[in-house]
């Protein structure tokens, strides 16, 4: 059943202070809406439980993308299009730019925001593995003040996060120290545009003298939260890449992930594909490191 607009309320304070004041006065009452590409889908279907919405789309403080010598700071309501079209994002953070290009069609990318993807907290969200491997840090803000949270500590369980009801995600910081890395990302889904991932890997790494110096791996859709593969990374550090390593890599990875059967895929398929993607990345890491 289609929702009746008059059952809802949407207010537009137009400033960060204004939004935070509302959230602080009645924390659980207000649901922020940024680009609406998750919220409005539920609303249109008459399935949005929250009746009171507060508009973030016209809050200028959340829109900025700032570049510093050591990091970039992405305002929470920066859209996928603005990320894809940003020179530094596409040059230094290609995994994020690529994920942005996958997130629905162009109309969706013009509205969907990075902060919305994070707060919506779907384990299948496409930009979240990239944020994990880039060691993103979030700034959360409320009238009580600001706090910084490493992104890898943000999700605590299926659709559960450390965000308090009176808080917003203000920005996402990415350190600018991965430009020399080999990067790899692949989304496996029914179709490239507009299909939710069955498995998605974001990975980056660096080799010197044939030995892995640093490697970051993160997977979507294989656990209740987007997952950084810390144990598999540990196993790889200081190793030479050789096919004899791949068996151990797959076994370690299987220990780390918790895939399920659902309408899009099966746990077995996801496990096999997750292993294949990591092995494919290691192949690329070897090939590109040999070339440079």
């Amino acid at each position, binding site marked *: 059943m289609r929702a009746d607009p*008059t059952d809802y309320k949407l207010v537009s304070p137009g400033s960060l202070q204004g939004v935070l004041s509302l959230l602080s*006065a009645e924390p659980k009452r207000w649901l922020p809406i940024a680009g609406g590409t998750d919220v409005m889908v539920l609303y249109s279907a008459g399935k949005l439980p929250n009746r009171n919405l507060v508009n973030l789309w016209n809050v200028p403080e959340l829109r900025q993308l700032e570049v510093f010598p050591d990091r970039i700071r992405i305002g929470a309501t920066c859209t996928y299009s603005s990320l894809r079209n940003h020179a530094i994002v596409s040059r230094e953070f290609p995994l994020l730019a690529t994920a942005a290009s996958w997130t629905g069609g162009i*109309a969706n990318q013009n509205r969907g925001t990075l902060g919305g993807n994070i707060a919506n907290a779907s384990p299948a969200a496409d930009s979240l593995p990239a944020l994990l491997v880039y060691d993103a840090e979030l700034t959360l803000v409320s009238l009580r003040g600001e706090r910084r949270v490493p992104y890898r500590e943000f999700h605590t369980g299926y659709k559960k996060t450390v965000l308090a009801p009176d808080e917003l995600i203000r920005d996402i910081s990415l350190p600018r120290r991965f430009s020399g890395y080999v990067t790899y990302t692949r989304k496996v889904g029914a179709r490239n545009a507009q299909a939710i991932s069955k498995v998605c890997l974001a990975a980056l790494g660096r080799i010197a003298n044939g030995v892995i110096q640093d490697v970051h791996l993160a997977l979507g859709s294989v656990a209740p939260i987007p997952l950084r593969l810390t144990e598999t990374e540990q196993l790889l550090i200081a190793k030479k890449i050789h096919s004899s390593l791949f068996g151990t890599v797959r076994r370690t990875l299987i220990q780390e992930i918790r895939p399920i059967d659902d309408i899009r895929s099966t746990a077995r398929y996801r496990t096999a594909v997750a292993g294949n993607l990591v092995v494919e990345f290691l192949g690329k890491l070897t090939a590109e490191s040999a070339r440079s």
Partner: protein
Amino acid sequence: MNPSHEARATSTVSFAVNGELRNVRVHPMERLLDVLRNELGLTGAKEGCGEGECGSCSVLMDGLLVNSCLVPVAQADGSNVVTIEGIAARSLLHPLQQAFLESGGAQCGICTPGMILAAVHLLEKKPQPTPAEIREGLAGNLCRCTGYTQIFEAVAKAVQPRVAR
């Protein structure tokens, strides 16, 4: 609770639609699509899926392609909206409209307004798109009649030939 933040049942949304300033008294959670169709009589934008998947409700908002079924009208306040009704210059069709006609890019017509606006948006951003860029630019717009080939041809045809230097 600050009363100025409390929305009344309706509010006034002011925006430019196809170049004309419009003030409409509507509920802020009305979808832009419904306001265009029901309040302003602009029925070019269609409702297909109502969940952002099909693109038949696409319009331009501040020059950017959006699915109007997913825009609460309050978020369009102060913006500049262009619908399919606004792209021809009086009786002179937009080059993309002409190209869709000539290439058979429209059949039942449900997807056509959205397809053309997606193509307008694409050529605005990338005046000389590659075939892959045309496909990507239209990937959020579904068509169940043409099989897409004629649509891609229409867009390619509308591309201004590069001026020889």
